[in-house]
């Protein structure tokens, strides 16, 4: 008898769907880490705006960039909320697929032991079809997640540019230059941490599934 995994290629092997849940947990952890970093940038940007105000006209550019970094942190937070929603949907899709796989396994066994009962075979076929549809829905979900991740990556690149520009602007801060340089260096470090978490998300084997 042809095994189900070979017969329906769009659906991952039973153990793969189980592992997907563990991968989703890791993805969630990274999302939480990025949201925390976005919050940190927001607070840092607020402090930077106050600092730039104290520095006066010499830190006007730094002030504008700090504002932009605040907007960046809020955009990043929204993007991660969207990603989180998609991930929750993926959990539902994987759970449905796991249930399908269990039902298929038990129906296959029932069909085999009963010498090919026609109605069990029909039920098995119907369930396999549903499983295939659910597998296709999950594949679509993965692609959508990848698209969102690509957009987030572009956003983070923008954040990186803003942080680098803030570093340059800090040099014009005259007596405030050391303080502004320290703040801009911290921006850079946090954006780098976001980039690292995003890299881990990209590398997740959850997206390697076909």
């Amino acid at each position, binding site marked *: 008898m042809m095994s189900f995994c070979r017969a329906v290629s769009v659906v991952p092997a039973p153990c793969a769907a189980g592992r997907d849940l563990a991968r989703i947990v890791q993805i969630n952890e990274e999302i939480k880490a990025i949201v925390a970093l976005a919050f940190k940038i927001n607070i840092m940007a607020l402090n930077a705006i106050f600092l730039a105000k104290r520095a006066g006209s010499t830190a006007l550019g730094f002030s504008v960039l700090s504002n932009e970094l605040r907007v960046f942190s809020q955009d990043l937070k929204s993007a991660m909320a969207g990603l989180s929603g998609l991930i929750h949907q993926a959990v539902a899709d994987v759970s449905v697929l796991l*249930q399908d796989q*269990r*039902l298929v396994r*038990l*129906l296959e*066994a*029932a069909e*085999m*032991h*009963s*010498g090919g*009962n026609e*109605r*069990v075979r029909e*039920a098995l076929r*119907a*369930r396999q079809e549903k499983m295939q549809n659910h597998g296709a829905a999950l594949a679509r979900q993965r692609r959508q997640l990848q698209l969102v991740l690509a957009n987030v990556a572009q956003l983070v690149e923008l954040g990186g540019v803003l942080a680098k520009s803030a570093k340059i602007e800090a040099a014009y801060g005259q007596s405030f230059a050391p303080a502004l340089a320290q703040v801009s260096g911290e921006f850079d470090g946090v954006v780098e941490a976001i980039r690292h978490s995003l890299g881990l998300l990209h590398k997740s084997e959850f997206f390697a599934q076909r």
Partner: protein
Amino acid sequence: MKATQCFFQDGEHKWLAIVRDPERPEALIDTNEYLVAYGGAGLLIDPGGAEVFPAVFSALSSEFDPAAIAGLFASHQDPDIISSLALWLEFNPKLPCYVSWLWASFIPHFGGSAESFVAIPDEGMAIDLNGLTLQAVPAHYLHSSGNFHLYDARAKVLFSGDVGAALLPAKSASLFVEDFDAHIRHAEAFHRRWMGSNEAKRAWCERVSRLDIDMLCPQHGAIYQGADVERFINWFDALRVGVAVG
């Protein structure tokens, strides 16, 4: 694979027991499933857990056409009783499942929708199987808080769910209790712990002692027949239940 044994037959009126699965994974408690058939239709009683569905289905198929199953009866909500529901509904989405009203919104966690269930009221109800009247007999708190047994007055068979259950050694193959005193040792701890109420037990003993019973069929272990039925009821009546250490 499980074995199907017919232990009552009068023309097309039959009781089948689906029992003893030597290939059953050790982690799963052994269960008995029963089918009462009448005029070509069947009612599957305590259909079993999802993991034993293949074994139950194939064993049943050897003696009875599963397509002729007209309904399922679940004595209560436990997974070894009814977690195979989703699979039976895959096989026939229109199968009604008779169960205490108390569990009608809990069991759908195993599968099915509101339409899948016939809620049995606390006082019990008559269930028609193609002209044969079966009676859902209240057995609340024995052990589940919404619990029913099933009585077939014509066959004089009482399906007694977990009451009468015995956790027998693996080598015990007999369908019927052969030596009551030896057998009941395997039932005592189970009943003391699983049966939660002495009052409920008393009421059940009084209720079933008024019924004409030739065979008392539990969901685990062996069937009591003849004088062992009364012996069991008396033993159960005298047993102090609802007892746990700690």
